[in-house]
């Protein structure tokens, strides 16, 4: 939390990378003391790039992914370093400012889709929630976008599947619905946190293929950037 990059839009340097993490140190609290989780990571991500992070379990990939949204899990703290998104210092921002960015400009696809959907709501309602809370689109437009995205992600019965509850669809379908949710506000940066760990191998291939297609397709049209922990098939640095 030591860096002091100016957060105002006016002062943001031209042509700055979309995401710039410099000398980041994160610690986690356990057994009465702070242990280092991330030690001095620096990375830059340009617009239109896909970046993959590879590391063994517990290496801090997810922690790094969350820090890119200005979020530290409970029990974690960011000790030093800087995280700037589009020239704005995320670590110096207030919670309300971060809230405005999250979901709309930086989206997150979580590790386990099954646990990341609210069991009380239908898929379509959750998919369009981000667009509604950020005032990005009207309910009708958001629902139409979501259906289109379902089709692009090759979800079967796109019309009907949105009316199901999370427990009524398979894990692979949930993961794709989650990707559709992340795309809803056309974010600049999407963080995929091991989007296929909880899936079996054949489904992994299918989900990754559809994610790759959509990132490619939308990225070209929308200048989408993707920052993607460890799916190596997606995660090569490419423009």
């Amino acid at each position, binding site marked *: 939390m030591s860096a002091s990059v100016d957060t105002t839009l006016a002062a943001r340097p031209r042509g700055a990378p979309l995401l710039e993490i410099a000398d980041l140190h994160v610690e986690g609290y356990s057994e009465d003391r702070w242990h280092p989780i991330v030690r001095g990571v620096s990375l830059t991500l340009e617009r239109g790039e896909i970046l993959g992070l590879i590391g063994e379990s517990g290496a801090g990939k997810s922690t790094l992914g969350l820090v890119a949204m200005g979020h530290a899990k409970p029990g974690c703290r960011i000790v030093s370093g800087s995280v700037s998104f589009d020239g704005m210092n995320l670590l110096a921002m207030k919670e309300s400012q971060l809230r405005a960015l999250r*979901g709309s400009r930086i989206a997150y696809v979580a590790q386990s889709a099954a646990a990341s959907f609210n*069991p009380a709501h239908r898929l379509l309602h959750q998919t369009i929630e*981000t667009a509604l*809370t950020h005032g990005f689109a009207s*309910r009708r437009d958001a629902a139409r976008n979501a259906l289109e995205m379902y089709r692009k992600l090759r979800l079967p019965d796109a019309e009907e599947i949105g009316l199901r509850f999370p427990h009524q669809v398979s894990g692979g379908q949930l993961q794709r619905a989650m990707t559709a949710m992340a795309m809803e506000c056309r974010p600049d940066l999407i963080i995929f946190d091991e989007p296929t760990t909880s899936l079996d191998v054949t489904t992994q291939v299918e989900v990754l293929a559809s994610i790759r297609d959509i990132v490619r397709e939308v990225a070209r049209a929308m200048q989408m950037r993707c920052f993607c922990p460890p799916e190596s098939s997606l995660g090569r640095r490419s423009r």
Partner: protein
Amino acid sequence: MTTLQTSAAPHRRRSRWRRLGTELRKAPVSAWFGMLVIAAYIFIAIFAPWLAHYGEAQVISQPYQPWGGGFPLGTDQLGRDILSRLIYGARNTLGIAMATTLLSFTFGVLLGLVAALNAGWLDQLLSRAVDILMSIPSLIFALLLLAAFGSSVPNLIFILAVLDATRVFRLTRAVAANVVVMDYIEVARLRGESMAWLMRREILPNILPPLIAEFGLRFCFVFLSISALSFLGVGIQPPTADWGSMVRENAALISYSDVTPLLPAGAIALLTVSVNFVIDWFLHRTSGLRDER
């Protein structure tokens, strides 16, 4: 929810009504009995002025008339028609109990959710304040407050609601704390959702079954406390008809083997049992509890 422009929307709405229909057909006799009794009470409460022959405070005859004649259930100690007062009593007691329960749930659920979401000093502050309120016996505390502020109907509703909200707060905080640690709440935070949205859309739907069950039970307790306070003379004030005070006013008749004072007490008991039948059925259906047979 229904404004979603999807081809399947009408299908969904129909199936929801149909689900309710099958659910009702499968309901046990006790639940049906409870629902019918509650419906009858609500009907009587709403249409009291048309159902009762006399006004609730109207003195129309000699005191303590026996059953029969113009007065099917006799008259009370001032010569008012007992049946008419019973009918009006449904309106007063039910209405006040309902208002109190709704108000206590508004306070309790709101603060409980705030405490669950803001673990830390705010949670500690609210929880300890509730502990202090709960450590005082509520009937005595209510008596004290009513004596201090005067026993008007708004005071009665507010005081009982605040005292009852402590229990609702505890339940809400406990069940919401289970939901707050779920992955989907963290993901929702990372979608940039505000606290109000998190409370209403993400947490509340998932804790609704225990809250609805609690609502039924709390309603009974509030109802009983109002009757108890009225019986003690600080609840609903005369000449407003209320079942609790009706028991007290006519209690002397018991000594002459007249069951009239038991009628309002019976009305209270019947409603309490009926509400519990319905809540039992609801809990059974939503919590997945099954009798092992």
